[in-house]
């Protein structure tokens, strides 16, 4: 592997779908074979480009869900289907193992977590905004580091939870990781509170206090990110420690 992560300009390359599995009825993880993948940091994304037979092209960005190194040398993307979308329904419903898509990446060196960062980490994800945060959770486990990690995961219903089993297992096995769920439309049975959007109370109660000086990563729909980042600042978190990634639209 002659390429390194920092060398030269990026080019598009063909990735082959090695496997795919559903995470929820509307979200699917694609496991990709990417020749000469240079490795990536958790939080980085890739651009995916699709070309139709008549030459028409569409391009979207997707966060990388997996950590690197990956046990099988693969790169995983989790794609949430947007019903009026152009690219995501293709990636969730049409593409099959063996198919090729074009990919450019990894890109983005700002919304990333490095295992050398000593601070506690507060992850706040809305919907499929949990994907790059999951890469961080996985990378922490892979690196065997001990920074306290807390994930606050806002999701519509229990059926929409990505990585539900893995998160349950990791909370049990990964010391120093915990997860709090916020359900916005429907809660599980016997949940202590009715459905609600992420609010001051949730972040105040379940987030790290500002004097822990956590590194905060917020990812989700634009309105979700605005709300969560504003609350963090209002609670006294240092804006310089808050990193955000919006993926447009409303929650």
């Amino acid at each position, binding site marked *: 592997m002659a390429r390194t992560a920092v060398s030269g*300009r990026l080019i598009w390359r063909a990735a082959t779908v090695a496997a795919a599995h559903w995470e929820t009825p509307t979200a699917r993880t694609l496991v990709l074979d990417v020749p000469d993948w240079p490795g990536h940091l958790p939080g980085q994304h890739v651009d995916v480009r699709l070309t139709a037979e008549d030459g028409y092209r569409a391009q979207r960005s997707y966060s990388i869900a997996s950590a690197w190194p990956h046990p099988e040398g693969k790169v995983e993307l989790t794609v949430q289907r947007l019903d009026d979308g152009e690219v995501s329904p293709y990636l969730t419903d049409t593409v099959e193992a063996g198919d090729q898509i074009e990919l*450019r*990446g990894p*890109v983005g060196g700002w*919304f990333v977590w490095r295992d050398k960062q000593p601070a506690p980490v507060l992850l706040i994800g809305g919907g499929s905004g949990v994907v790059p945060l999951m890469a961080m959770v996985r990378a922490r486990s892979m690196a065997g580091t001990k920074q306290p990690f807390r994930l606050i995961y806002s999701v519509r219903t229990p059926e929409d939870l990505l990585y539900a089993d893995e998160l349950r297992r990791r909370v049990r096995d990964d010391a120093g990781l915990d997860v709090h769920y916020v359900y916005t439309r429907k809660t599980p049975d016997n949940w202590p509170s009715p459905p609600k959007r992420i609010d001051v109370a949730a972040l105040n109660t379940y987030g790290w206090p500002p004097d822990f000086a956590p590194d905060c990563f917020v990812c989700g729909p*634009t309105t979700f990110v605005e709300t969560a980042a504003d609350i963090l600042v209002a609670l006294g978190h240092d804006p310089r420690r808050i990193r*955000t990634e*919006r993926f*447009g639209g409303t929650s």
Partner: protein
Amino acid sequence: MTQPGPRGAALDGNAMAGDLREIFAVDVTAARFMCAGCTHTDAVATLVVWHQSPGLVARCPNCSDVVLRVVRAPDRVYLDLRGSVRLEVPLEGS
């Protein structure tokens, strides 16, 4: 990130990472910009990016002036930087 105002469908500067890495050997989204309008400085990744337009328009999160424009033609990329006084680019491994 605390500024009020309608961001609509705008994204963060992160979203430009791919198009910029096609031009530059370094990740420009991790660089710091200084806005020509208000001298606000922060990571390029924090710019407010309007992407549903003929090109990418990255505006200052503080004053909303245009800091950077990226237009992609089939065989070239145009990068308009008149809205930024400077870019401060961290070099990896130094």
